[in-house]
């Protein structure tokens, strides 16, 4: 990005110090990351992001379109992405469910794009204005077939901005859809934020093919596992299909080996780099006998609770998952080896709890602490459960 373009974005936003909602921060982050196409459909509590994008994108030469539904929104952003334009959509639970087929399509065709899910209470229409963390497993397994997904979870408005930029960078780097799994609480709460300086953050753009046109094989990476697929309109005549395809892009549905190679590669390009992708925040883990593992809005209460209990002398620590998928297996497994008990508070009936349990095995006891209905866990809730189920047992 040129300084001029950055300046235009800051001018469009208005100020560098703002008191803003999460929903706004996703938009600011997207623009700063180079997003120039947005397609979406109104849905509580994500509509504010679409409205802001509709206002800001035209000011910096980007395109906004409200599509007829969420399926169409995903289609449009994938279409924009294959021409080389960074694109994004935003939705909540019911829309996220509709988007699953196209998320799978984007994985299979290795098309970068960012999907923000501002989670609300479900299932079905549920409580439209209440937050939840109920789509965490759907983020990983929502579409059919085998694929990998990258999903990040912010716990503050500033982090919402920063992680949105990170989503775009990861999406471009790995040529895969990346999800920002946020929630209605972070989406609608306001906090002081700072728009980063021009030199204060990084932008990653997808790699272009280096090979000559005659040697161009779109789905055969020049090195590593991420292919260099040319943008449409540059003379490479790339065929992209959701069908199982050979490295040249053409369909090959009756070949088990080709399918295995393709699907394995598109999964491994992410799992091989899991250590590079995964981000967590550790607090007081060195001597912790009890560990609370949480993410998103819940972590605000959990961290507060852990700090209070530490002051009271409890050997307790906290692990905040910033990357939800790929799941930080190794880190959680290590915690299981040193801690005796692990508490997993979530605004759902227990979702990432299962991944924690799987990573920990029999090494420690994993206890879930679900809370649904839209009210957040308070620090006191978490302290009480810890005392009841762990300390005083």
């Amino acid at each position, binding site marked *: 990005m040129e300084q001029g373009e950055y300046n235009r974005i800051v001018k469009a936003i208005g100020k560098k*110090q703002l008191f803003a909602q999460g929903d706004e921060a996703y938009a600011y982050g997207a623009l700063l990351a180079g997003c120039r196409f947005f397609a979406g459909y109104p849905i509580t509590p994500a509509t504010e992001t679409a409205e802001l994008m509709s206002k800001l994108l035209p000011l910096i030469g980007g395109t906004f379109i409200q599509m007829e539904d969420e399926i169409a929104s995903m289609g449009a952003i994938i279409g924009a992405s294959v021409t080389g334009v960074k694109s994004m959509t935003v939705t909540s639970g019911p829309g996220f469910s509709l988007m699953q087929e196209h998320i799978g399509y984007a994985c299979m065709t290795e098309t970068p794009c960012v999907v923000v899910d501002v989670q609300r209470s479900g299932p079905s229409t549920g409580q439209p*204005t209440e937050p939840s963390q109920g789509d965490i497993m759907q983020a990983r397994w929502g579409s059919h077939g085998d694929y990998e997904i990258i999903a990040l979870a912010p716990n503050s408005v500033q982090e919402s901005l920063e992680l949105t930029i990170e989503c775009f960078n990861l999406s471009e780097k790995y040529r895969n859809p990346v999800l920002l799994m946020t929630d209605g609480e972070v989406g609608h*709460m*306001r*906090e*002081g934020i700072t728009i980063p300086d021009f030199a204060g953050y990084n932008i990653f753009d997808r790699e272009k093919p280096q090979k000559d046109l005659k040697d161009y094989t779109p789905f055969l990476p020049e090195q590593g596992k991420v292919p260099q697929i040319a943008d449409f309109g540059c003379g490479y005549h790339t065929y992209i299909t959701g069908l199982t395809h050979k490295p040249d892009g053409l369909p090959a549905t009756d070949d088990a080996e080709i399918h295995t190679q393709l699907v394995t590669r598109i999964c491994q390009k992410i799992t091989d780099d899991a250590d590079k992708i995964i981000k967590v925040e550790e607090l007081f883990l060195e001597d912790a006998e009890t560990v609370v593992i949480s993410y998103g*809005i819940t972590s605000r209460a959990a961290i507060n609770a852990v*700090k209070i209990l530490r002051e009271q002398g409890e050997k307790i620590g906290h692990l905040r998952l910033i990357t939800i998928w790929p799941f930080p297996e190794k880190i959680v497994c290590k915690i299981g080896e040193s801690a005796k008990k692990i508490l997993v508070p979530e605004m759902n009936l227990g979702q990432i709890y299962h991944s924690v349990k799987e990573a920990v095995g029999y090494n420690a006891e994993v206890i879930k602490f679900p809370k649904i209905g839209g009210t957040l866990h*308070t620090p006191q809730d978490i302290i009480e459960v810890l005392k009841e189920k762990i300390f005083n047992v």
Partner: protein
Amino acid sequence: MRTEISISGFGGQGVILAGLLLGKAAINDDKYAVQTQSYGPESRGGAARSEVVISDQKIDYPKVIEADIVVALSQPAFDKYCRDVKENSTIIIDSDLVKALENKVYSVPFTKIADTLGKKVVANSVMLGYLQASTEVVTVESMETTIRENVPEHTIELNLEAFYQGIEFWKKGKKNGTG
């Protein structure tokens, strides 16, 4: 220092805007602030609540646990939100819209004052003036700037007038000892 503020009333009274302005003013004062809200589906009527947490350190838990300052601009809001308060919480109510039996309640005719200025709808600005003066949770300068920058241009003067009236009411009350 962590101050928890809850402002509640009917939808349409500007309760959420008031919380937003308070949060912005706190940021202007170089403090940390988080503002959240809840409301029903109705555009008018129903219940609306804004929570603001102001601190000089990074804020972990973003919601009100036990409010230090509670403002209630409607009876249902008072009944709902003025129970879980600390012993020495400051409770501020609109004297015409809320009946409170508690002693330590600051009862102020926000809506009446706004009416005398010509627009009942700026009652929340009167309230912010009174809130600022009585608790000093934000500075006058910050609140002024915030109001100026965040209300429709043609209403800036009216809102600022309402804000000053709120401050005046507190000052008069202090002088009289009725506080």
